[in-house]
């Protein structure tokens, strides 16, 4: 596609529910990133894929967070047993894999846990 597509745009979950957030990167982009942006803050790194390999997951805040990219294209970020502190915008970005050229970001999914 022309850009990075994320769905859903908004998600409201009851505390304790599981959620799945989808990211469809730009075709041909080998690198894919997930960031978490709390209200009024800058985005914070969660995890990074190169093709289907998850090379860095050090930013995932707990074992309730899980990301996958099984075929090296679409990625899903799953949050189990959601808690109120998980409320944030989740941004996905992709790139060709060359450092220093910046990433193309999607418009994010705003997750609200009630």
């Amino acid at each position, binding site marked *: 596609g022309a850009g990075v597509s994320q769905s859903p745009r908004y998600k409201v979950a009851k505390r304790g529910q599981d959620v799945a957030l989808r990211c469809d990167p730009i075709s041909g982009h080998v690198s894919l990133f997930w960031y978490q942006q709390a209200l009024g803050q800058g985005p914070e790194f969660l995890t990074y894929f*190169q093709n289907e390999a998850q090379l860095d997951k050090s930013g995932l805040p707990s074992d309730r967070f899980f990301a996958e990219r099984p075929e090296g294209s679409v990625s899903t970020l799953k949050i189990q047993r959601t808690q109120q502190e998980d409320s944030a*915008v989740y941004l996905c*970005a992709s790139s060709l894999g060359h450092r220093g050229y910046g990433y193309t970001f999607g418009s994010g999914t705003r997750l609200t846990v009630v």
Partner: protein
Amino acid sequence: AQTVTQSQPEMSVQEAETVTLSCTYDTSESDYYLFWYKQPPSRQMILVIRQEAYKQQNATENRFSVNFQKAAKSFSLKISDSQLGDAAMYFCAYEVGSRLTFGEGTQLTVNP
């Protein structure tokens, strides 16, 4: 710890005037890249300008330019001839490895 500091939570500028947004960072790395991103209410982060740390020449992109002071670890953004469409949240960031570290942002208002 590697950090990025944007000391101006909010800035305002008159249309057609010039504004400078400040950013300082702290890293022990020697090989890194610096960026300014713009985030309008649509939430999409849009790349404004980039700078390689090993280059002394300041990057310029149309009305946007940076003042990169490597020794001081300072990376400010200058917007010339400000336009109403420039109003947004601006984030400074650096890239080490395959990870971006962002500041907390500066909300820019452009007054007509």
